[in-house]
């Protein structure tokens, strides 16, 4: 009697786990694009590893590693055009880099400075959200604004599997369905929300099928296959721009590291599980493919890695050379015009700090 759902569409894949192109799935990307994608992936991985190292050295705050998410993050951001909008969450290093966000800024933020979260002018990259799922309605608002202003931009929003349990996921996607906004929602289903496994997060067979509740399509894609992610996001973006409404993409991946540097994943998951995902590494797959196409070799790969390492070191140096926030900075952005009482508090704090420094 029930309305049972059919959710048996296969997960989209272009490169299999051995880096071989699936028959008939050759990606529509130019060699330069493919090389560029690989470069960003290497940069993201290198930057991530460096951040973890800095954290251990006390030079970086609590940090959420992106290890293993490179294909999701970069694949999602790569097809965007300048007029599009991106709404990231706290695990989105690869997307930030793809969109051209300065790595030094990203580091600066994670080192504990608000200034690092100020998006450079000209980039439609919203500040990453930490309250889980709360950014989803924002993305819908941006797309709705674009629609009302007759602009062409589409709004892409990312979040984890855990986020799909929050009310804001539901409310945001429901608005998107009703207003047929140009939104692409990409869930990085990395199987864990801190210690909570995907199976405990929801009883639905896939996350993609949740789109059915909002009257638009849901797609499952191999989130460790950057070419497949690009293809599915691109298709969704094309549909969105053509007025075809939103899409939910479930990118199936795995969180290779701890949740953050404050977490110890060995408390709740087995080493075997992590090991089982190692061969599906997104970088390895693309590397094999590029070599097979003759687009890279050991030497060029080393060049890419060296460039990444250099860029990372430069970004660290730059971030660390920046001055900390002044008291003026802390107060300047609460209101457009500072109320007198707040200005007094600012003066009071400056005096207190002066007195304390003098002791």
């Amino acid at each position, binding site marked *: 009697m029930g309305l049972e759902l059919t959710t048996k569409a296969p997960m989209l894949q272009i490169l299999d786990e051995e880096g071989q192109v699936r028959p008939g799935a050759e990606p529509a990307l130019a060699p330069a694009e493919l090389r560029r994608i690989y470069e960003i992936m290497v940069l993201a991985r290198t930057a991530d590893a460096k951040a973890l190292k800095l954290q251990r050295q006390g030079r970086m705050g609590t940090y959420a590693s992106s290890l293993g998410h490179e294909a999701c993050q970069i694949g999602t951001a790569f097809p965007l055009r300048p007029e599009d909008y991106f709404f990231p969450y706290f695990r989105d290093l690869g997307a930030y880099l793809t969109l051209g966000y300065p790595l030094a800024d990203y580091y600066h933020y994670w080192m504990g400075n608000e200034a690092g979260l100020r998006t450079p002018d000209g980039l439609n990259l919203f500040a990453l959200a930490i309250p889980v799922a709360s950014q989803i309605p924002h993305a819908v608002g941006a797309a709705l604004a674009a629609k009302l202003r007759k602009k062409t931009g589409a709004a892409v929003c990312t979040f984890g599997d855990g986020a799909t349990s929050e009310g804001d996921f539901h409310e945001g996607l429901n608005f998107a369905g009703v207003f047929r906004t140009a939104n692409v929602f990409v869930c990085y289903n990395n199987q864990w929300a801190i210690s909570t496994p995907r199976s405990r997060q929801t009883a639905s067979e896939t996350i993609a099928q949740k789109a059915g509740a909002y009257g638009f399509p849901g797609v499952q894609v191999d989130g460790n296959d950057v070419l497949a992610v690009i293809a599915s996001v691109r298709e969704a973006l094309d549909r969105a721009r053509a007025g075809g409404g939103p899409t939910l993409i479930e990118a199936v991946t795995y969180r290779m590291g701890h949740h953050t540097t404050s977490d110890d994943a060995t408390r709740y998951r087995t080493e075997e599980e992590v090991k089982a995902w190692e061969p599906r590494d997104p970088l390895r797959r693309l590397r094999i493919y590029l070599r097979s196409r003759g687009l890279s070799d050991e030497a060029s790969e080393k060049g890419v890695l060296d460039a990444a390492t250099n860029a990372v070191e430069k970004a660290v140096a730059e971030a660390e050379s920046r001055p900390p926030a002044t008291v003026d900075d802390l107060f300047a952005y609460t209101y*457009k015009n500072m109320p007198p009482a707040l200005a007094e508090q600012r003066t009071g704090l400056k005096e207190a700090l002066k007195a304390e420094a003098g002791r």
Partner: protein
Amino acid sequence: MKITMAQALNQALAQEMARDERYVLLGEDVGPDGGVFRVTDGLIQKFGPERVIDTPLAESGLIGVSIGMAAFGLRPIAEIQFLGFIYPAFNQILSHVARLRNRTRGRYPVPMVIRTPYGAGVRALEHHSESTEALFCQLPGLTVVVPSTPYDAKGLLIASLRSEDPVIFLEPSRLYRGEKQDVPEEPYEVPLRAARTVREGTDVTVIGWGAMVPVMEKAADEAAGRGVSAEILDLRTLSPMDREAVLASVRKTGRAVVVHEAPKTCGLGAEISALISENALLSLRAPVARVTAPDITIPLPKAEDDYYVNPARVLAGILKTMEF
């Protein structure tokens, strides 16, 4: 022309929306229904369904979507049907509306107005008579505005709409169809962050806002009959507060009575009382009195009058302060 507060608000919305097409109105039943209090009456006919948008029933979504609109070029005006139904959106308001300017170091401020009816005295169902303004006054980044007359309603709403900061605009439901007032046809601003001296006096300062203002006026009339000259201050902007106006008046009169509909504990009256003690203790001839509702859930209509702050209670507060 003499119009009600609801009409004055409607005028403000219509005029600003006509002036600047970045204004977009959205909420539950704001379209053909014109809002449950008819504040948005006729606007969908004037501006079309692209600028007057009936949304699904989801307050967090509503405010969250408004944030995205505000960050990317529009000036959303979000209506929450009653203050009692704003709480599902509390996370969006506290974590994002209030903080995005700061979080992004000025890159993504979210100028928007969240309008909502509030307060008791209209014999409504549970959750429809809330007066929880103090929840918002403690969130840095927000501006909290409450009008008490049709004239102020129009001018304060226009000023709020033009503000670069997000505004929580609380409309006292009890006053929507209260006393009519002559309101200029043309648009005008009543400045934010500036209290209004409703009536000058010399013996005691009575401070309040919204639907309490007429109550305070009646109490002041009665006090006058007993030889007590009460100065009445209507805060108009609750946060950031016009501290100078409060302190100047209290320094002059030496006595203060704060009046609010909300329960006593941690209401805005506490902040006002603390401010006065901190800054004008030596001027005080009596403790700052708070005349407020008790610390209980507001009762259903049958007992609402028992609960509701009335002129007699304000008068009693004034007299007690005089007699200290």
